[in-house]
């Protein structure tokens, strides 16, 4: 009781009275349906310039992707109007154009191009704007197209990945300063991750580590920086495990300095990832540190 009596005023002083005013300020939004085309378009429009490369994609207050929600609303509007393309009016072209914008932010470039094409060929007020958009997004759709045929060998896959990285890098330069730049950077980053993965899949952990360090150097501002650090930590940890396993199987003799250097690098990468602002990522990093500590404890006991 004495502790409660001491804690209560301390808590009150520490937390301040702002809490109550904040509670009083909360209001529940009305539940009436959206009733104008402008409101649906505006809701999408305010997020079209978001820098989705540096920051997390915007979500609604219940955690849904704003672009997916906007697309869903537009699809519902189109469904309710239920007009064939031949009988479209201006409102239908507006809906279709907005759909194109939502689709491009969802990285569905092919669908976005199709939507812009439908508007561009209409002769409506939006036609010219749609044609311009179509040109840019068409290059994105081309760059994100799947390979024409299965890869003949792993090296062909690597060359394909390298080609895509270069292509997206060029596109990012072309659209520099426009809202499309963040999209191109995201795509380029994805392919760089693919390159790291390719080396890891091919048992080339040393190359994978180098590729991952290049990824971190090239994407220092990315919102995924923490995740890349985790990936790098995993690669170092896997390398350390491999060194220890090979020694355990008498495949090679254990070089303790090399093993410890790899473990040290893994811990370091996880520690940096644990400084990310996202609680989930911090938790993930801490869990990996614990897992590696447990592994190392066993490994140390096995060292002759």
């Amino acid at each position: 009781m004495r502790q409660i009596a001491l804690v209560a005023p301390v808590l009150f002083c520490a937390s301040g009275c702002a809490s109550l005013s904040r509670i009083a300020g909360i209001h529940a939004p009305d539940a009436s349906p959206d009733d104008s085309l402008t409101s649906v378009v505006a809701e999408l429009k305010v997020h079209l310039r978001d820098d989705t490369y540096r920051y997390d994609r915007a979500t609604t207050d219940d955690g849904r992707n704003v672009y997916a929600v906007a697309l869903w609303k537009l699809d519902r509007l189109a469904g309710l109007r239920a007009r064939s393309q031949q009988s479209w009016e201006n409102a239908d072209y507006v809906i279709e154009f907005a759909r194109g914008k939502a689709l491009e932010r969802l990285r569905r470039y092919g669908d976005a191009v199709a939507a812009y094409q439908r508007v561009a060929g209409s002769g409506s007020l939006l036609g010219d704007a749609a044609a311009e958009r179509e040109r840019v997004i068409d290059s994105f759709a081309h760059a994100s197209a799947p390979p024409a045929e299965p890869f003949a060998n792993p090296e062909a896959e690597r060359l394909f990945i390298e080609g895509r990285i270069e292509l997206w890098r060029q596109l990012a330069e072309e659209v520099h300063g426009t809202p499309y730049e963040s999209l191109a950077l995201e795509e380029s980053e994805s392919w760089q991750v693919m390159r790291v993965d390719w080396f890891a899949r091919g048992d080339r952990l040393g190359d994978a580590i180098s590729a991952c360090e290049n990824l971190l150097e090239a994407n220092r501002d990315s919102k995924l920086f923490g995740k890349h650090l985790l990936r790098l930590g995993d690669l170092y940890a896997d390398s350390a495990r491999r060194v220890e396993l090979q020694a355990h199987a008498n495949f090679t003799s254990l070089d303790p300095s090399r093993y410890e250097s790899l473990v040290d690098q893994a811990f370091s990468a996880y520690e940096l990832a644990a400084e990310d602002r996202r609680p989930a990522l911090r938790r993930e990093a801490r869990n990996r540190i614990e897992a590696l500590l447990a592994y190392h404890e066993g490994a140390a006991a096995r060292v002759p």
Partner: protein
Amino acid sequence: MFLEERDTMDGALRVGLWLLRVGVAAGLLFLATGGRARAGDLLGSSDAATQLLLAPELGAGEDRAREARDLLATERNRKIAVISSALVDLGINASVGASPVKLLQSAGELGRGLLSWSNRTRGEERALLLLAPGAVGGELDDTTRGLYERLEGRERRALVTGLLDDGQRALVAGQVRRARIAVDRALELDPSSERADTLLDAIDAQTRSARARAIFDLAPAQPSLAFEAWDVRLATSLLTDGDARDPQSAPEDDASLGLARATARYESGERAEALDDLRRVATLKGGAANVAREVLEDRSINPELALDDEIWSYTKRRSLGVLGGEPLAGNGLALEPENVEFTVDGYRKLKRSYKVFRKTVNPVNLLVDAPVRWWRGWRPEGAALREAATRYLDVEPEGVRAAEARSWLEALRGDERASARVTPFRDGYFVLPHARTRYARIAPRRVVVSLDALERQAPALARDLALESSDAFVLGESGVGEGATALERGRALELLARLADGLEAGSLQSRGQSTGDVLEAVRRLDGRVRTGTTLRIAPRLPDVSASLSELGTALVDGTRARTVGDISISRQDQDIVAGRELGGDGAFCLPETPCIDRKLPVQGGLFAQTSGGDSAAVGARADYRAARLSVEMSTNGPHATLVLPFARWLGITHFLPVEAHVDVGLAGISAGPRLDSTAADEADAAESL
């Protein structure tokens, strides 16, 4: 003033305890009354059993009635027992000053028990089934018939309520036929139900409406989706980045128009003005106003909101952190009213936060840790605030709060140097820093050996190598320090073997780490030398006494520091110990490095310690062949302890891990066996191997 408050609190506490005692007494009285009623029932049931034995063919209806009464009595007693036990639990928790969480749990159980008092139970349903045949056959006496009618009425009312609820749901869902069937059945059971009549009227109205639509061939209402021309023009302007501010024929006070204007302003960079417009639109009604409200709540659009939230969070965490460190900064905000979640996870968080707060209130934290944290300018992790400030400046570089955001970034710059995006970069290249995580090293590194130990185990070698320039030496393949001498392979192996022999024979001792760990380090060095590595030896330069700040660090951060006169000060959790080993305590040792010293036959030391601010003591202790004698004067009076490890001396600790303890204090003399914890640890270690 404090005395008055304390008197008032004491008075309130006394009244509260009196009320609880009255409650507990009432509960116990209630339990006793319930017990008597149950005993009476048992007497009646034994008479009935006798009758059943004498005339088994008679009174089947009476048996059923008796069973039904028993069932009802059992149900009633069970409910009373639940309430009584909750009441007693609450009383006990209040009397012993249990935590508020436990008090709330007990009060909740009591409330649940009271609320469920009049609920129908399975026992009641079974009793009704048992009484039904007798009621139909007219075999029940007046009292039992009255009971049957009461139970039957309760069941009917429950059925009617369920049917009407179902009917109402069906009507709302447009299932008129199903709603009507439910209401008809409810009316059969209770023809006087007003609620059923009202619902029936509603069903009739809906049926008439549907019939009228059918007569005039009207289709069911469809959502007509047509947009005003100005609405389409506005949307078009928005999509083409056109001027959406003044469309013709749009109503001036329309929320959509306001929203379009705000969006266009936002796009053109007039962010502050756009947010003002959005706030105005948010006060209107309709879908566009809803959108405006959602946008204003969106932290990515309204960076000011995010900045405010993060400043608030950072400031609160900083205050809490100064008070209770990282644990309180990380968990304390869960106690904020707005952060309380009424879920299992929320409850767990709340409990954790409460525990952290309770830990904060201890003298060592309040008198040592908290002031030091304040003096050092303790700060919580600020990545979220840094991002919010950066984003604000990205969106509104000339905004009203831009200067404040910049000042926060400036304030956080010191932390940024240690952040994940800055630390690992050198000239643009990614280079990982050394890990901070501590883990057991397996690579042989170095061992510190005292001159005493060398002279005892390898005197000739020490003379040959002229190892007299220092009190201690560092042995290793690298990183041994200045003035290192390379040892020839044979000598190196001999030195390592002598050290290992000494450790195993007990003439040498390890410092800081277990003897096993130090032996393992020596063995690994031996292995490296055998594979061709050169062992080096260098004098270990003596440490100077700790500075005032190092002493502060030892006290606050739980490290160990050595002061003038070879006195060491260390802290572990809430215990602070100052001591001096007689004959030295390894001042030459390095942190996290195996260390070997000569073992004296008798070891002793003087110490002063405080434990959590609750007690303090000064004393002396001595060890000889694992026997220990200690004498201390503490806040609880003088106290002496003698420990005689007979089992260890006889070599039977593995079977009998006990030692004899003799304690002499103000409370008298006591003697007896106690578990030898070191023997248990050794056994664990042996098993793990």
